[in-house]
């Protein structure tokens, strides 16, 4: 018996599907058609609302497969693809799937041939449907409706516009996630309602059936606006994953134009600021000298004062770092010329360190003070100011490359270490720096100036001892 004997020659079959997403119905009909040897070009598949005009005169009764018909074969890959692809809105999908099923009977491994146009098309449908489902999981936004009726309580309602017939297939996801919450998802293709126990389906809805807003949306928008980094705008990447068609139903999306426009401004300001912060650091002492006079990175530079550059030989083995220029240094433009400087000179001389062989500078380049009448009263620089000015002292250090750095006072130590240390704990022993040199820390001479009597005597001795240790270490290193 040849295949065609079962089928009336020239007969077209028209299959009307009861639902656009009814895979089981399609499968049953397709199986009977294959077993009756009805070739794909003789079947028209019509979904609800679709037109079957072309085949208006087709046979509506299904052919009855012969008793000895072979079972229909389809591998698992085909079934899982078909089950998903059938949710696509393309009216051609049923015919495509039937054609594939038909072809599978003679070439059972055809699904592996990814270069085959039918296989490619069904994979594309599957992919579109999966993407649409994924976007539904992601972009559904519930809004809270508080019911007057105490017993009903909170109800969360969402409006969503899927591209394909995915609503029913995704009911389970929302049920598993929000199982103790009353919710409804309304779409133009139908609606779902969950009352914490049963799921029910409803007719297609319109947007105005869903609530218009939710007080939480302000917080959510605030979060959305704050969590992104304006310095790394990547609009293309955003659009790829969140195409504009979804925006109208996402409360946060209304902010995007503003955020993008604002980001450019914010980034421009960052770059402007960055021009200072991320400039190339000058690599000669003369250039640093020039640059610190223009530096306004911290508030001290805004005062009426002058920057004071370090001085001494560029190849000095010892670098002495003080806190910041004082009134006299500011006037003369030279470091350590005031009372503290004079005291330092005395002690250096006493232990036998030649100041002229050392490079002497300050952790902070400008004089920080408050005006009291005619007098400018010295003020300690803040941690942040020291850290900012560290930029310059690091520059000087990179050029002079001293073997040993002597920091006098906690501010100076911070300028080199980036953290605050206690002088009494670290004095008397070297702290290795990452370039291989070593840091010694001692008190600032102005501290001695503030003491009197026995206390001063004691501190002066400690100071001398520190200086002597530095001298000894310098000789070792030489």
């Amino acid at each position: 018996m040849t295949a065609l004997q079962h089928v009336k020659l020239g007969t077209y079959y028209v299959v009307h599907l009861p639902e656009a997403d009814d895979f089981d119905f399609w499968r049953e009909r397709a199986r009977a058609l294959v077993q009756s040897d009805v070739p794909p070009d003789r079947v028209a598949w019509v979904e609800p609302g679709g037109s079957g005009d072309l085949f208006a005169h087709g046979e509506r009764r299904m052919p009855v497969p012969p008793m000895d018909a072979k079972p229909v074969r389809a591998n698992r890959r085909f079934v899982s693809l078909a089950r998903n692809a059938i949710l696509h809105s393309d009216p051609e999908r049923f015919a495509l799937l039937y054609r594939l099923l038909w072809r599978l009977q003679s070439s059972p491994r055809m699904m592996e041939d990814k270069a085959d146009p039918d296989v490619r098309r069904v994979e594309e449908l599957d992919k579109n449907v999966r993407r649409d489902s994924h976007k539904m999981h992601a972009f559904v936004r519930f809004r809270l409706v508080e019911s007057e009726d105490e017993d009903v309580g909170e109800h969360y309602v969402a409006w969503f516009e899927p591209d394909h017939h995915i609503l029913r297939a995704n009911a389970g996801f929302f049920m598993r996630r929000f199982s103790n919450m009353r919710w409804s998802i309304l779409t133009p293709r139908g609606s779902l309602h969950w009352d914490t126990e049963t799921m029910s389906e409803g007719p297609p809805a319109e947007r105005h059936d869903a609530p218009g807003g939710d007080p939480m949306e302000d917080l959510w928008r605030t979060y959305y606006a704050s969590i992104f980094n304006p310095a790394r705008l990547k609009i293309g990447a955003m659009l790829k994953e969140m195409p504009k068609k979804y925006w109208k139903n996402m409360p946060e999306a209304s902010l995007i134009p503003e955020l993008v426009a604002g980001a450019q401004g914010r980034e421009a300001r960052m770059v402007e600021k960055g021009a200072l912060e991320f400039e190339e650091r000058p690599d000669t002492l003369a250039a640093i000298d020039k640059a610190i006079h223009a530096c306004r990175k911290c508030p001290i530079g805004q005062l009426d004062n002058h920057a004071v550059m370090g001085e001494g030989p560029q190849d000095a083995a010892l670098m002495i770092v003080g806190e910041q220029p004082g009134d006299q240094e500011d006037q003369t433009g030279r470091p350590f010329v005031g009372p503290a400087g004079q005291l330092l000179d005395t002690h250096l001389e006493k232990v036998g360190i030649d100041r002229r062989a050392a490079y002497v500078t300050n952790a902070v380049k400008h004089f920080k003070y408050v005006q009291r009448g005619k007098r400018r009263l010295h003020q300690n620089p803040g941690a942040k100011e020291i850290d900012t000015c560290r930029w310059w002292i690091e520059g000087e250090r990179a050029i002079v490359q001293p073997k040993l750095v002597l920091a006098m006072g906690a501010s100076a130590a911070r300028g080199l270490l980036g953290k605050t240390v206690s002088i009494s704990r670290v004095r008397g022993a070297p702290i290795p720096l990452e370039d291989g040199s070593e840091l010694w820390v001692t008190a600032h001479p102005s501290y001695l100036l503030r003491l009197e009597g026995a206390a001063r005597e004691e501190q002066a001795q400690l100071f001398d001892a520190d200086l002597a240790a530095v001298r000894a270490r310098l000789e070792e290193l030489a």
Partner: protein
Amino acid sequence: MAAQTILQKLEILADAAKYDASCASSGTAKKNSLGGKGIGSTEGMGICHAYAPDGRCISLLKILLTNHCVFDCHYCVNRKSSNVARARFTPQEVVDLTLAFYRRNYIEGLFLSSGIVKNSNHTMEQIVEVARILREEHDFRGYIHLKTIPEADPEIVHQAGLYADRVSINVELPTDSGLTRLAPDKDARQIEGAMGKVKADLVEAKDARKRFRHAPRFAPAGQSTQMIVGADAATDADIVGKASRLYDNFRLRRVYYSAFSPIPDASAVLPLKRPPLIREHRLYQSDWLMRFYGYKPSDVMQATEADGNLPLDIDPKLAWALKFREAFPVDVNRASKEQLLRVPGLGVKAVGKILASRRHRALRLDDVALLTQSITKVRPFICTVDWRPITLTDRADLRSLLAPKSEQLELFAA
């Protein structure tokens, strides 16, 4: 000062969290809220609920409990000496926000980090408290990622792992010297010690579950870490080396890279130039090669240039191929999966399709073109029944032929 509103706090504490690169909410144990009292589910794959204009996905409520901090790390906008606006949530406020956002399907869960207040233990306890309230009082079954504080008592960190899907401890910087210099209050050994402890907890919990089905889960999505790139002089070779040691030693699920970006109020110790974002991108690509394409860290290191950095104009896979031209062309009809995975322009999916299709037909160049994104990129490195690139792989200008026209394109193309 008037008390801050939740909105004001959220603004500050989300803003402060935006430099954290991790966002993933995937790879955890499946759970749903059926039969429970609360809400939430995780189904293996995480969901990105929105995308920000910086192209990154929003899947979790990513915030800091507080941005007050007793530490003074120079790369960090929240460091003690920075003068940003400060705020502080109570654990209950974070819980309420998480639940309210979750119920509206804005998020998959919570990513909680914090500046260090008072001391490490206190801070860690507060972080754990948020997770405890969510899990125990609200039966919340969504995703929770907790940032743990390395200096905190291991017992508290262990608690965090019992509530969270994932825990992470930032290594911060690729080299110890970088850490010493830029995070003077942190200690590399302590950080790695904490990671080691978490790994031990993970292994032990897994073992216990094999024997007792009801043994408690411990961070089923594993642990991850983050490294800041471009704040110190570490090269890409250093970074990849560090990452692969971390993967091996601590069985990390992910190493995230965060390109140091010019943070407002940056400290002067930071580098001269802002590192290009494309560098971060290249590091992710190389991470990808190691995780899915069978590249070894040494392969990636070989793809770096003389200065130890990956080229910025081409991707690391292409860079490797150009250095090892003798490995090409690869015959798509005959080559092994491993060889195919080394072809620039062929992704894991395309390789799968080639392997499946070639059982049915001898692939021609046109067939391959159908299975790949861009045949131009692939062509110089393969042969098919009708195509053999005789001279192309030897051409000295191959790189410029294949490099994207400008690096801007790759990052900012709309």
